[in-house]
């Protein structure tokens, strides 16, 4: 038979057509049945807790002597006595678990109480059998976490690189500067948080804090190598960039850098026009470009994929750097991020052993389902990869990303059970 192709809306239509199911018990009958059920429940309620308590006592009687024997043979061996402690706590846990189950059972007294009694009678025996390898049987997940902690105590503290909504305090503003690397090849967006000032616009704050940036410390080139002055006319949305007298920007890479930085500012702050000046006079000498009076708006509609950039080999935490190019979809961007761009010294931000499927759930949300063998760990590398994915998703105007099919449910601060909000801005740095 020909394979049928089902569409979402057809499925939705079918679901809506599922018949109404009605219940014919009258109000009176229902009420009576309920009252009878309630009575039965009340009468049986005392039984299960008593059984549970009896089992708990029995369990203790059996476990305590076993533990005392263990202690005797332990002697001065510290390791052994540590195991004892664990055993003791596991035993209590086991008891608690039992209690919980029996309590749970008490909610459903419809079942044959005799069965419950029988069940419970078998339990302690099984529990003793388990005590031998209780570490393996009991709450495995907790034990593994403990193990991980021993090997990698750092994993608890891994920090993301970007700024997230919850990081920003009420009185703070996030400013993102496009700072060139030493080769003036890549422009790294660096975000700093500053206090808002009552009568200053964001653009004015941006200009005021330019001189506070620690580019050299961060392993980057200079943002304003010619010490230009910036003035912003808020009402006309015109930015004036005034270079000191006799400035001649001879190198073409530097003039390109200035243009790039200024066009980025233009896009970020909705600036209408940027005027270039030298010592208050219109225009500046810009190498190959010649005498230039203003910066034109450029087309910034191309989307960026985020890659890793390391200023040098000693650097362990990457900068997450957008590379603007013509990309059709977020899926294409993720594919590109697996490769990196060698000529720009941009490294792949998604490792080869992490494969996933991307689906658009809504205009706001992306769903990423990792392949079964994707190597997702709670470590820094994986965290940075997730951040690269989030920042790229943001570039394509999604607000949140849900990650699925991961064996763990937490990476750094991200709770993988929930949707992760995309960052506010990349590469957070502190100002002195």
């Amino acid at each position: 038979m020909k394979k049928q192709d089902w569409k979402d809306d057809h499925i939705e239509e079918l679901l809506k057509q599922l018949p109404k199911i009605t219940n014919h018990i009258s109000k009176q009958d229902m009420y009576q049945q309920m009252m009878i059920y309630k009575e039965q429940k009340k009468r049986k309620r005392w039984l299960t807790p008593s059984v549970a308590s009896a089992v708990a006592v029995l369990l203790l009687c059996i476990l305590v002597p076993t533990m005392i024997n263990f202690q005797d043979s332990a002697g001065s061996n510290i390791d052994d006595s540590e195991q004892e402690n664990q055993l003791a706590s596991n035993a209590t846990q086991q008891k608690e678990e039992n209690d919980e189950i029996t309590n749970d059972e008490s909610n459903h007294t419809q079942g044959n109480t005799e069965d419950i009694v029988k069940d419970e009678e078998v339990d302690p025996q099984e529990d003793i059998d388990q005590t031998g390898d209780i570490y393996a049987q009991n709450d495995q997940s907790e034990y593994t976490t403990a193990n991980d902690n021993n090997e990698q105590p750092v994993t608890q503290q891994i920090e993301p690189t970007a700024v997230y909504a919850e990081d920003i305090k009420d009185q703070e503003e996030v400013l993102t500067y496009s700072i060139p690397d030493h080769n003036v090849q890549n422009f790294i967006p660096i975000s700093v948080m500053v206090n808002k000032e009552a009568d200053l616009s964001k653009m004015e704050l941006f200009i005021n804090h330019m001189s506070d940036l620690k580019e050299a410390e961060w392993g980057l080139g200079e943002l304003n190598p010619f010490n230009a002055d910036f003035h912003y006319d808020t009402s006309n949305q015109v930015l004036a960039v005034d270079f000191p007298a006799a400035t001649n920007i001879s190198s073409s890479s530097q003039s390109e850098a200035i243009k790039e930085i200024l066009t980025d500012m233009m896009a970020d702050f909705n600036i209408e026009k940027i005027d270039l000046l030298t010592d208050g006079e219109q225009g500046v000498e810009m190498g190959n470009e010649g005498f230039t009076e203003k910066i034109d708006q450029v087309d910034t509609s191309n989307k960026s994929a985020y890659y890793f950039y390391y200023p040098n080999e000693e650097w362990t935490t990457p900068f997450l750097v957008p590379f603007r190019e013509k990309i059709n979809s977020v899926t294409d961007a993720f594919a590109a991020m697996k490769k990196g761009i060698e000529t720009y010294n941009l490294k792949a931000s998604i490792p080869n052993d992490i494969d996933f499927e991307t689906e658009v759930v809504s205009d706001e949300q992306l769903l990423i389902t990792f392949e079964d063998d994707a190597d997702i760990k709670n470590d820094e590398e994986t965290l940075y990869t997730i951040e690269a994915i989030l920042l790229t998703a943001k570039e394509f105007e999604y607000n949140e990303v849900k990650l699925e099919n991961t064996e763990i449910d937490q990476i750094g601060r991200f709770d993988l059970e929930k949707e992760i909000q995309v960052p506010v801005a990349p590469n957070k740095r502190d100002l002195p």
Partner: protein
Amino acid sequence: MDSVFDELYTKYHQDVFQFLFYMVRDRELAEDLMQEVYIRVLKSYDKFEGKSSEKTWLFSIARNVAIDSFRKQKGWKQKIIEKFDWSKQQIKDEHPMPEEVVMQSQEIQMIYRCMEKCSVDQRTVIIMRYIQELSIAETAATLGWTESKVKTTQHRALKALKKNMSDMWEKEGLNSEKTRLER
């Protein structure tokens, strides 16, 4: 008769029953669970603060009752093992299709059967959204989830249903058509 019971029965009995039925897929069990729902509702009606709507409150109780009944069906060992991974579990049931569904088209019968293969969370969202016609916000309030989580689960559920439908169509499309004709 208790006036609260009287009012809730009149307003919501059929809705809640239908919800429970599609959750547990067994009319008798759904009737039994209805009693449990009323007991829990009457017990905690005083504490109901009207923060959520009466309807979402009732559905959230019904959902808990249904989930508890699933747990009860399992042995305690399984319960411990699966305790950590409840949301992903699938519940198998072999109950016959109810008469109301048997009278529908083959496609509707198929979708009813495919719902069984969805996870409990997925099935809950599908029933609430499409059969009970709750909004995303109401579903989120009932389940105590974010709206995003409802959307994701709904999306996942439709995808799972699509796949199950295709598989079933391929495997037994012809057979079921035959049975239908004979009937």
